[in-house]
């Protein structure tokens, strides 16, 4: 280990302990930090300071109303350009409502919907879709439409973001998912996502939501053509908006997958990149409460160890995921609630079933672990407080 890198981590650790905010340069340095385990340890400390061992998950389902999309993002294996193209699919209201009505899990608390940017569906169609869902299962939270979709509606139907959101909320919208952020920096975004909301527009849609009291999540699609600097820049743009609005609940790093899209030739990010990115997100995004290890994107084993690299959320049971699976994800299509609970327990954490806005549905007991395992955290906490006292 060179003196420089040791200095970097030491300096950053000191900053964190002093409660100082990390800078752009710190973020870039962390991406080059070879001591990957110590990086994980720092992120884990921040995670444990915020949440202890509590680890969140929810019982949710996925829905994609349409995969027909005007845009043609180069990483996207999901969208079909035209209605009628092979594989193109748009749901009917009845089919959509039926799917929710007949969802077998009585514990379902969330419907998560992300769509293509459909050229012809009228705005009222979406409103009616939400209203119908509220009629069949009023208790299920509707987390629908990315910032990109909100912006698309605003442009297409000549409304402001606020107007779009206000009408959708009236129809039943509860919150926005974090998708569509990709990489916000224009140098990258212009190359991979030319014809949809740009970075500022994505942020503007979320800002509008937050101002209306609609919470949202945010994401970053990493591991394609962007540099580490672009990632840090992206995270800091999110952090700046969060300073302004406090409306983001959770950040979700999304690993790029390379099948069935026009970036096939690019290698996918490996687990070490995923864990590193997640850990750095935890350290930089000091104002966003939760960091999610999205198991569909990173794979179940890596998501589990991610719970010790800064993540405190495993997303949900997710029935019917097709965006990642179109791009070659080998993760299972669904995990049962029991499986999620077991994954969390195996990581030495306490499973907490949450609703979309992080209300606790049920806090489960931790696993019956050998007595020593509990000593680990106490001891680490003691070490940390000693280190603090030493500063």
């Amino acid at each position, binding site marked *: 280990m060179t003196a420089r890198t040791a200095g970097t981590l030491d300096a950053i650790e000191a900053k964190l302990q002093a409660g100082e905010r990390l800078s752009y340069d710190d973020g870039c340095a962390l991406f080059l930090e070879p001591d990957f385990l110590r990086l994980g340890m720092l992120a884990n400390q921040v995670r444990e300071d915020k949440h202890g061992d509590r680890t969140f998950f929810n019982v949710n389902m996925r829905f994609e109303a349409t995969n027909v999309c005007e845009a043609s993002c180069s990483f996207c294996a999901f969208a079909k350009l035209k209605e009628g193209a092979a594989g193109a699919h748009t749901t009917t209201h009845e089919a959509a409502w039926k799917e929710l009505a007949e969802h077998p899990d009585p514990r379902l608390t969330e419907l998560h919907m992300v769509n293509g940017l459909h050229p012809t569906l009228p705005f009222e169609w979406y409103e009616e879709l939400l209203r119908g869902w509220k009629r069949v299962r009023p208790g299920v939270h509707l987390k629908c439409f990315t910032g990109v979709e909100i912006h698309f509606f605003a442009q297409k139907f000549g409304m402001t973001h606020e107007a779009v959101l206000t009408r959708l909320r009236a129809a039943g919208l509860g919150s926005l998912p974090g998708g569509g952020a990709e990489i916000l920096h224009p140098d990258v975004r212009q190359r991979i996502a030319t014809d949809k909301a740009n970075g500022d527009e994505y942020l503007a849609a979320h800002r509008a939501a937050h101002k209306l009291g609609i919470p949202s999540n945010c994401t970053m699609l990493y591991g394609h053509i962007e540099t580490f600097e672009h990632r840090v820049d992206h995270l800091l743009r999110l952090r700046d908006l969060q300073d302004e609005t406090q409306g983001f609940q959770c950040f979700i790093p999304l690993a790029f997958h390379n099948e069935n899209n026009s970036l096939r030739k690019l290698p996918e990010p490996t687990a070490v990149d995923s864990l590193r990115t997640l850990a750095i997100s935890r350290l930089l995004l000091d104002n966003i409460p939760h960091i999610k290890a999205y198991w569909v994107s990173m794979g179940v084993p*890596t998501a589990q160890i991610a719970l*010790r690299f800064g993540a405190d959320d495993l997303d949900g049971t997710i029935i019917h995921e097709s965006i990642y699976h179109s791009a070659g994800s080998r993760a299972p299509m669904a995990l049962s609630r029991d499986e999620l609970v077991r994954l969390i327990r195996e990581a030495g954490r306490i499973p907490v079933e949450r609703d979309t806005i992080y209300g606790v549905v049920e806090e489960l007991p931790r696993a019956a672990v050998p007595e*020593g395992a509990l000593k*680990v955290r106490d001891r*680490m906490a003691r070490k940390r407080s000693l280190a603090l006292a030493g500063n």
Partner: protein
Amino acid sequence: MVKRKPGLVQNRYRRDTVDHGGRLRVVGVSFLNAQPLLHGLLSGLADDRMHVELAEPAELARRLFEDEADVALSPVAPLATHGGLEIVPGCAIGCDGAVESVKLVGDCPIEEADEILLDAASRTSVVLARLIVRHLRAGKAEPRYCARPAREIVATVGGKTAGLLIGDIALETRGKFRYEIDLGQAWKELTGLPFVFAVWAARPGVVSARDAPLFTSSLEAGLAARPQLAQAWARGHGGDAEAHLAYLNDRIRYQLDERALAGLCEFLRRAAEAKLLPVTELSFVGQDKPAFSPQRASVDSLLDYAADGGRLSFQDAMRLASEADTHELGLAADARRRTLHPEGVVTYIVDRNVNYTNVCTTSCRFCAFYRPVGHEEGYVLTREQLTQKIEETVAAGGVQILLQGGLNPALHLEWYEDLFRWIKATFPIKLHALSPEEIWHLVRLEDLTVQDVLTRLRAAGLDSLPGGGAEVLTDRVRAKIAKAKCTSAEWLEVMRVAHRIGMRTTATMMFGTADTQADRVLHMLKVRELQDETGGFTAFIAWDYQHDVGTRQVAGETGTVLYLRTQALSRLVLDNVPNIQTSWVTQGPGIGQIGLRYGANDMGSTMFEENVVSSAGTTFGMDAAQIERHARALGFKVAQRNMRYERLTVPA
């Protein structure tokens, strides 16, 4: 009241500590010098309190460690290997000067020998011998040490080859060799202290203040009865009663007094310093404070000690397993890996796993691969199928075939010999084949010895053995998940013999079924112990049980976090095994990669197919390019290797 030491991992894994009627399970050994200690107990002195049995010497420590005994007349080396046992005060088997029954013998002065053959039956004597030899050679390089059966040692010693003899055979060969060093005498000359060979060792907290004095009473009765004991021994085992009595009276010292304790502590200190035994503390039954305590009290210092290559005891490993943070374990294992493999090169092998038959008589609960004899889906690969698979492997740059299968009673030793000869004559490829289970199957089928079977297979072209089928090497676990399989001692015996005839093997551990943390640590210790003896293991590979369709075994302690912790711990415990492989085939490429920071230095093989795992639903594939990309993303260079871990490509 059961007293426990602070910081001690309590033995929550204990099954019935006491046998029917609340009695302690006590195990002794059938040695002449043990007779006085056992005399009172065997004549019924404590029948209401204790259930006394005799066992093979090698069994004593195992029973104690695996909780099949509460108290055993144990050699002292296992005190250090375990680290959490308590000593019953007052009595021991020791000597103060010459002992006659433990000696180094040779045709040349012992310090000039190039090679020393060891009777590995007593680790304590082996360690003592090595300390004495080290002292005599005063800084010169160590001789080569090889474990051999006692009779073979007597037959082989000569020239520059010396030997260590223990017990009856040492007494019988008095005056047979030109040079002899009595190790009791040598120890006395070196330190001025008595030596302690064995003590009554107890699992922590099980011997009450009321029971402890019974052991001393038993000895008192035995000391008084020495003449009768010597006579009885001569009747039962031969030899001269007078000589036996003189040995008991003049050579063996039974008191565990201040001086004996000083001798014991000095031995453990020197052995730890020479990295032959773990650093340990000594505790006595009924005392709160350890009688001897090293500077290794905190988990932090223990991690540093392990990262430096310090030898860990059972107790140490248990403590790390339960009290060290996952990242800390990774950091310590990573530091240790860097010391052992400082060039930062990750290796892998291009080979193919071929399952030549799925017919098996064993029906392990965790196995989704096998079909019973007569089942319509049972197969034995034909030569044509094998040709295709091997040709594909050679074409892909493969250097080895890993051949494993079920225990198919239709396939005899000749079948394997023909097959191996044919493969080796037809293809330029190494044969890594037949796990110990399959070797035992042939031993039984053909009514031959392990050595016969292995020697014939080697002559037919077998290059090395895979370490599969080890599961977890404690019999408690094996009996639960694979009842019909060989015992852990049998598994180890195949490896011992294979190593002795010059084959290298790997060792594996499949955990996450009926095992606890204690079982997993015991498994590692057994591998470490055999490795001390033979040096034949090239690598250790652990993975957790992949519970899925077709298996009947419920999953126990599994998961990615535990996998990485276990792998890191194995890097620390197995201080004498050169390589640790990640098991990306079971864990997926991501965790295989991350595992390179948790102690592993090898990515295993490219694996075209692995039916036992993939039948249970877990299928991951990586080709050479992907393996290399994953390792390089962590900053490593990558090289291909063969089974002996010789590099076949330049690291890049």
